[in-house]
Each structure stands twice: as structure tokens, then as C-alpha cells.
């Protein structure tokens, strides 16, 4: 009896592991296929431009608000911590480095995963369920080029732009709290921010952002494209897109940080 139990247990672990490997393989093949189609004509410029608007421009309020309040909270929290050690002067450095290196790219990535990743999965999933993707094929249009490539290109290129704007807004949030609520002098705060910031900090954040943009749009497209039938299938695709994108963002953030700063 206990042996049977152990075998059952091992079998279920093996089954899950097998499923995970298969899923990773499928996503990898999907990604390779998508990337290869980026460089092969025909190109759908107008549709790509529309995705730039949808993914980039319309995510601006969400990313801006996130960055603003993160910068503000960061200043407030580090003040309460640092006053204990008389290290208030380090607040500007903490805000600028945390925002540019980590918080702006990761939080923007997560917010865009919720906003854009979910929308992509739901839209493409619905197109799959209502046979619109099959219709594309019968009209001699490759769905990868028409649906997947524009979204992945727009996501990969627009997230760094969003993060750059988020960097500026986030640092401004920290500045506002420090100067207006915590009575720092404008000159010394800005001087410290400027002195501590290096271009590598910003660039590493932007490279991360590009990777996160790719992950978010890829997951949205993959789960939507392989959506199950009916409303339930599309619902599951949307959930999976957001969850997998968020987890992959956090994992790849660690790996990229290790690569950049070790």
C-alpha cells in the first residue's frame, strides 16, 4: 500500500514535470516562429502602428500613475528608515537608483501584463474561438504576421519608452515628497540625484523593459492563439497570459540583474 502511494505520488510529479517541459518547448517554438516572421515580408505597417498606440500610448496613464506613487512612497519610506541613522541625504540616491534599475521596469512590466497581456489574450482567443484566425488563413494571410508580429514588435519597442517616461515621473514623485513634505532643499536633492545617476542604470532598466515587453506580448499571443473553446477557454487563456507573464517577468528580472550588476 505505501509503495503504491509512493509510485502514485512520483507518477503525478513526473506527469506535471513532463507537462511543464512540453509547455516550455511549445512556447519556445512559438517564440522562434514569431521572431522569424518579424524579418520576413509582408509587413503590416498600419496594424503595427495601431499596436504602438494601443500598447504604448494607452498604457501611459497606468504606468505614469504607478511610477509617480512608487517614487513618492519610496521617498517617504526611506525617510522614516534613514532618519534613524541620520542618513537622510541618501534618500535621493535610493529613489533614483531603485526607480531606474528595478521598480520602473518591473512595475511597468507587471502593469502592462495586466492591461495589455490580458487584452491580447482575450482578443486573439476570441478570434480563435469564432474562427476568425481560420478565416485569415483562407484569405491567404498568415496569422503570425497579421496578429502576432505587430503586437510583439510594439510591446518590445514601446515598453522601454514607457519605462523611460516612468523613470522621469517616478524620480519626480520622490522629489515632490522630499522637497514639499520632508523639507529637503531643492538644490541638494537634485544635485545628489544627478551625481548618483549613471547612464548604465537607465540603460539596464530599458533593456529589462524590452525583455518584459517581449514576454508580456508573447504570453498574451501564445495563450490567446492556443485558447480553448468557448468563454471558459478564453477566460483561462487570459488568466494564464497574465500569470505566466508576471512570473516570467520576476524570474527574468533576477537573471538580467545578475547579468548586468554582478
Amino acid at each position, binding site marked *: 500500500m505505501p509503495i503504491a502511494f509512493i509510485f502514485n505520488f512520483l507518477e503525478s510529479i513526473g506527469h506535471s514535470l513532463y507537462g511543464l517541459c512540453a509547455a516550455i518547448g511549445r512556447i519556445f517554438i512559438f517564440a522562434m516562429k514569431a521572431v522569424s516572421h518579424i524579418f520576413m515580408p509582408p509587413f503590416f505597417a498600419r496594424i503595427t502602428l495601431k499596436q504602438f498606440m494601443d500598447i504604448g500610448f494607452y498604457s501611459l496613464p497606468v504606468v505614469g500613475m504607478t511610477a509617480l506613487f512608487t517614487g513618492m512612497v519610496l521617498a517617504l519610506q526611506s525617510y522614516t528608515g534613514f532618519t534613524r541613522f541620520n542618513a537622510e541625504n541618501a534618500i535621493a540616491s535610493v529613489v533614483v537608483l531603485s526607480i531606474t534599475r528595478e521598480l520602473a521596469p518591473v512595475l511597468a512590466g507587471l502593469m502592462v501584463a495586466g492591461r495589455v497581456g490580458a487584452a491580447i489574450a482575450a482578443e486573439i482567443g476570441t478570434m480563435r474561438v*469564432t*474562427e*476568425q484566425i*481560420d*478565416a485569415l*488563413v*483562407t*484569405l491567404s*494571410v498568415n496569422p503570425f504576421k497579421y496578429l502576432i508580429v505587430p503586437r510583439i514588435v510594439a510591446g518590445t519597442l514601446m515598453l522601454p519608452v514607457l519605462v523611460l517616461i516612468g523613470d522621469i515621473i517616478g524620480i519626480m514623485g520622490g522629489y515632490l515628497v522630499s522637497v514639499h513634505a520632508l523639507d529637503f532643499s531643492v538644490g541638494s536633492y537634485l544635485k545628489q540625484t544627478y551625481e548618483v545617476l549613471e547612464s548604465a542604470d537607465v540603460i539596464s532598466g530599458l533593456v529589462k523593459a524590452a525583455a518584459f515587453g517581449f514576454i508580456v506580448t508573447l504570453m498574451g499571443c501564445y495563450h490567446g492563439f492556443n485558447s480553448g473553446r468557448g468563454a471558459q477557454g478564453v477566460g483561462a487563456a487570459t488568466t494564464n497570459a497574465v500569470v505566466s507573464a508576471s512570473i516570467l517577468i520576476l524570474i527574468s528580472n533576477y537573471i538580467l540583474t545578475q547579468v548586468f550588476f554582478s
Partner: protein
Amino acid sequence: MNADKTDSNKNTPMIKMTNVKKSFGTKHVLCGVNLEVQKGESLVVIGGSGTGKSVLLKNILGMMEPDEGTIEVDGEVTTHIKGRARVELMHKFGMLFQSAALFDSLPVWENVAFGLIHGEKMPKAQAREIAIEKIRAVGLSAMVGDLFPAELSGGMQKRVGLARAIATSPEIIFFDEPTTGLDPIMADVINDLICQSVKELGATALSITHDMASARKIADKVAMIYEGKIIWCGKVDELDNSGNPYVDQFIHGRADGPITKHSDFVQKKSA
């Protein structure tokens, strides 16, 4: 010699399926389908729900790959072709989907012109003109062109779907349950439009349906699929004298007969 060649071309079936098999896991959906559709002919495949009618179409279109057997389109073996060659091949096809499958992000005229603009690289203005002409041909006013699919009724969506299927003047048109979900009068209107447009284009038509009124109207020939095989194929006027008990039960819509008897057996066995 030349005459011979034209003759053999004429005799080449537009679509030929030989011993096509397709399974999903342990479920055998197509179990050796043999089917021929001649040029300019309208063949209707009838059969109950879940007998593999849609899988049959998807195999021909390359959206699914058969496990065994060969598929030929106009004499060319297309069973496993992919990529650009498949995209080229799709120029020959038009399809009306069961749910119309219109692109809801595009206005009606762009839906109809989609294959012309993106598939055939036609300038937009010219494609729009053809689209409006096709929208008129299926009995809708040109103003419908500027509406979005969500603003149309089911019958109008089917008409637009038909206009889109015929817009590129394809050689082969597939109709996937063209009358499902329509009232009898609208169904008949769609049947008429199908007959008319297929005739005007001189196209080969392959339809799948379980609506017998529709099958009788649009078919030159009828084939019945049952348990993944074509069990009967003949001219539409032979349908009532097929001598096949399965066909008889299906076309008369009887609850009692060999089809239900068999499925009863399956149920008992699995219970």
C-alpha cells in the same frame, strides 16, 4: 496530343482525398475518407454532428494535417505543404464559415476586401469598389459597407461572409453549415445566393451541412459521412433511392434506425 492533355486536365478532380485518416488521441475522427469533387461540381457532405465534417474541411485547407492518406487539389498533392506554398495555394480557396467569422475590428467593406488587399495586394480604393459590388451582389445596400459586423443581424453577417468568400473569385469555395442559425426563409435566400454565386464564378463547391433542404438545393452530388468514412455518394436526385439505410434515416430525420441503434449500443457498452 494537346487535346489529350486538355482532356486529362478536365478529368482531374479539383479535390481528391485518398484514404485520409485523422485521429485525436484515441479518438478516430476520419477513418479512411475517399472523396472526389470534379471541377465545377457542387458536392455536399451530409452527416450528423461530430462525424468529422469540419475536420474534413480543415484537412483540405491545411489547418490540420492528416495522419495518413493523400489530398490533391487540382492534381497537385497538397497533403503536407506548408509556409509560403500553402499561402499561395489558399488563393484558390474561398470559405464561408458557420459563424461567418467576420473580423469585428474592421468595417464590413474591409472584411469583404480583406483577401484582395492583403492576399492579392490590390490598392485599397480598387478593392473597396469590388467589395461594394460584392456586397450589392449578396443583396445588401452599399451603405452596409461602412457598418461594423456587430451591427448586423445573423442573416446579414452570413451574406457578408459569402461576399468575402467570393470577393477574390476563388476556384474552390467551401461552405461550412451555411444555413445553421438562420430562419427558413433567410436560409433559402442564402441557398439561392450560394447557387447563384457558384454558378457565376464557375467555381467548384464543397459544402458540409445537416440541413437537408439546403443540401437538396445547392448540391449536384451528395456524400454522407458516418463514423469517419464516406458511406454513400451519389447524385442529388438519387438521394431518395439510395438503398442505404443510414442515408435513409438521416435524410428523413428519423429517431429510429441504424445510426441511433448503433450509438445506443456504444452507450450501453461504455456504461
